[in-house]
């Protein structure tokens, strides 16, 4: 490469201008403003929208990453659920308050604790106009439970013993043992995306690709899928729930956050999911728009691989738990867009047995490791490594806010002699570190789609947990809680599981997340809730104007 030989002939002014130009471009590109201690104000409550009743030609949704496959059994990231929730359905669904409602099933009965009899809709059709048969439903459930066909969903159906067509519009699912949380798995947010048997077989099970697309029963069908570019949904008139107002929903995959922001500022985007917290101010500055924040059932905490020394030592785990200043992290780094977590299960997941406030109170009664560096120091002194140690901590590139928290925790730990080397890695690499027996300290970042109180804690404390925590009582508690039919009693049992985790410092909860979504004020959405984007939200959109 040749280098410019005549820079010395440049006029001073030109050089300065050039330097400013280059520096400005670097600053524009590489800088995200450091979070300040100011609370972000989310102004959703200030915007009163009116439903104009008009039809909408197209709604463009910007997504921060691409999908590789549309079938959640193959790829089950949270964005996959966001896209597919308006295209496919399960047997049941959820309303805005989290209550189970019918989807392809109009009703269900449980003649005994391990049998679910689903009465199917008579008016349900696939997007090609064919009626939905009980055989299609049973077939879809079988495939969802098959680890090879559906590696993304099979685990949730481990407890399923059988599925059978037991009447012209009736499907019966039996479980191996009683499980109060089983029903939610029958929803699209759980594990079931009902598709047509004929369609599945025509493509040899290779569904959800750019060629085969996907066949569902929802109000929108996929008409185009170009990985790394976009997915196009077009409304159909075959849905039992009616015809939605928006004719077309186009999901644009825009991985670069600056480009996503530019597209929204240009007016190319109506909805943007996962607005990055450090960029919030710029997003809020876009005219005729609003930012909606809602608790999104996600959990962030620390995991400790007990197969890796010194994390097999409870005092080491306690020392780290005491070093996490949850309140400061949420207030300053997340700008209030989250809640300090006192447990693994989110308060919202305890609804409808407890309101979110009552749930928070209840979870607060669990043993807590409130931020206290004196206690952290004492715990470390009592451990096998009283003088401290050095360890690694990786966080995924898709969670910059987790990186900020990692730095804060590393700073606290430095004061007691524990050196934490923080590094950002691609999300795929981060996934590989979870419970790999090499990384002792790690983050858990989990989006619950089902909203079931046992979804996350049974993963992090129960059998096959990534902490390599082996305590037979965990499995017993999970089995016992599953058998409870009364929601409150079941939550009492799950509290025992949380207590087991806290007493042994198995996990260190940090925060429960909020999703931050950008909306153009031309578009409104009915009944916005934590469940919105994992349920039939396409049909809830409407043309809006500010009152």
């Amino acid at each position, binding site marked *: *490469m040749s280098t410019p030989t*005549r820079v010395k*002939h440049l006029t001073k002014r030109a050089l300065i201008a050039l330097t400013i130009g280059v520096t400005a471009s670097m600053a524009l590109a590489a800088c995200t403003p450091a979070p300040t201690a100011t609370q972000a104000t989310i102004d959703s409550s200030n915007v009163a929208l009116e439903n104009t009743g008009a039809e909408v030609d197209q709604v463009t949704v910007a997504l921060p990453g691409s999908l590789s496959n549309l079938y959640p059994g193959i790829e089950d990231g949270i964005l996959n659920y966001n896209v597919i929730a308006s295209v496919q359905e399960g047997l049941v669904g959820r309303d805005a308050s989290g209550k189970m409602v019918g989807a392809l099933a109009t009703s269900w009965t449980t003649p005994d604790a391990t049998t679910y009899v689903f009465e199917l809709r008579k008016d349900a059709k696939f997007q090609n106009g064919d009626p939905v048969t009980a055989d299609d439903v049973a077939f879809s459930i079988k495939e969802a439970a098959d*680890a090879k066909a559906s590696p993304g969903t099979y685990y949730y159906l481990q407890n399923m013993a059988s599925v059978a067509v037991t009447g012209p519009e009736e499907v019966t699912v039996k479980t191996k043992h009683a499980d109060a949380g089983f029903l939610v798995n029958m929803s699209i947010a759980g594990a079931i995306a009902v598709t047509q048997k004929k369609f599945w077989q025509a493509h040899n099970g290779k569904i959800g*690709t750019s060629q085969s697309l996907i066949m569902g029963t929802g109000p929108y069908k996929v008409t185009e899928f170009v990985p*790394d*570019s976009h997915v196009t949904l077009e409304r159909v008139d075959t849905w039992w729930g009616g015809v939605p107002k928006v004719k077309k929903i186009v999901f644009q995959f825009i*991985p670069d956050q600056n480009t996503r922001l530019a597209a929204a500022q240009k007016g190319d985007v109506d909805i943007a999911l996962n607005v990055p917290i450090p960029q919030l101010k710029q997003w809020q500055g876009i005219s005729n728009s609003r930012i909606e924040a809602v608790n999104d059932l996600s959990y962030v905490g620390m995991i400790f691989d007990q197969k890796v020394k010194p994390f097999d030592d409870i005092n080491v785990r306690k020392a780290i738990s005491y070093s996490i200043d949850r309140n400061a992290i949420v207030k300053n780094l997340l700008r209030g867009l989250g809640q300090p977590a006192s447990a693994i299960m989110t308060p919202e997941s305890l609804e409808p047995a407890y309101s979110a406030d009552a749930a928070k109170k209840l979870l607060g009664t669990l043993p807590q490791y409130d931020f206290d560096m004196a206690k952290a120091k004492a715990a470390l002194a009592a451990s096998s490594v009283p003088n401290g140690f050095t360890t690694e901590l990786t966080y995924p590139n898709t969670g910059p806010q987790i990186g900020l928290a990692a730095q804060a925790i590393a700073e606290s730990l430095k004061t007691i002699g524990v050196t934490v080397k923080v590094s950002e890695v691609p999300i795929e690499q981060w996934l590989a570190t979870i419970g790999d027996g090499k990384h002792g300290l790690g983050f858990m970042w989990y989006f619950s789609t089902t909203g079931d109180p046992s979804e996350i804690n049974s993963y992090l404390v129960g059998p096959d947990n990534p902490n390599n925590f082996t305590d037979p009582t965990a499995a017993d508690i999970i089995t016992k809680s599953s058998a409870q039919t009364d929601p409150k009693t079941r939550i009492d049992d799950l509290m025992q599981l949380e207590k087991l985790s806290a007493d042994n410092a198995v996990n260190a909860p940090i925060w429960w997340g909020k999703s931050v979504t950008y909306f153009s004020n031309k578009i409104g959405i009915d009944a916005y809730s934590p469940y919105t984007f994992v349920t039939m939200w396409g049909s809830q959109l409407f043309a809006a104007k500010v009152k």
Partner: protein
Amino acid sequence: MTGRQSLRLAQTIALRLLGVAVILAIISFLTFALMYLAPGDLVKNLLGNRPSTPEAIAAIRAQYHLDDPFMVQYWDWLRGVLHGDLGESIRMQQPVSQVLADRSSVTIILIVLSFVIAVVTSIPLGILSATRRGSALDRFASAVTLTGLSAPSFALAIVGIYLFAMLLPIFPAYGAGSGFGDQLYHLLLPSIVLAAGIGAILMRMTRAAVIRELDGDAITFARARGLPQSLVQQIALRGALIPIVTSAGLILTFIIGGTIIVETVFALPGIGQLLEESVLFKDLPTVQALTLLVAAAIGIVTVIVDLSYLLFDPRVRARELSR
């Protein structure tokens, strides 16, 4: 060209292509080995951050032969390729050939456009700078190329979006468009951004080559004979042609690396983004096919550049074809 010369030419080309094939074989093995050693876990990528049973993990490992010895895995892949089967993309669940066909057009247009933009702007600018050494124009051109060389392409891309998609809304901010005309329009700004860096290199190379020729004995002699300036410049340009073509070939290989960044910033569904994602996912069949494709493209460009010497330089022609 005599029959004997044609035969020599055919031999030269065959030998070069054989060389490319050997290099491809070596690269395929090295890529396979690097992917094998790279951090990450295909099973985790497939199962996601979810609980999973040991049986399911074992089934996936068996399905993708992850427990086979390294050489067995490589041989399985190679055998498939030699039979014309590039395998199936693990991430996309589609044949790799299909994925490549879907993705190539955007990247090919991007590369061709940016190459053309770079060539038609940089070479004339380089020649002008050389013939007017030290003038205001030369200094200005140097300043511009310095920016092109020193600003990273992701920064240029974001500045480009800000200036030409937002302040002056001439171009779209992102995406590849649909239909050929729309696609060209969508890919113009990314191509300009990609051309900036490589164009700067090409301009400096051209300038240096032309200056060297202008300072050469042949030109001094031509001027001494009283040849008109335009003819003198022609002689100088002809002499500078080989280094210019060589650097043009070189930058074509640089472009391919640049596409990864530009495609990501502009959200373009091309080969660059696919390569990055496939490497991260450990989608081995896709990575192997892409690496071979890129290496083959570079190999063929190099062969073409080498053969162009025969055309441009009678001395090379005489040496290569008359033995």
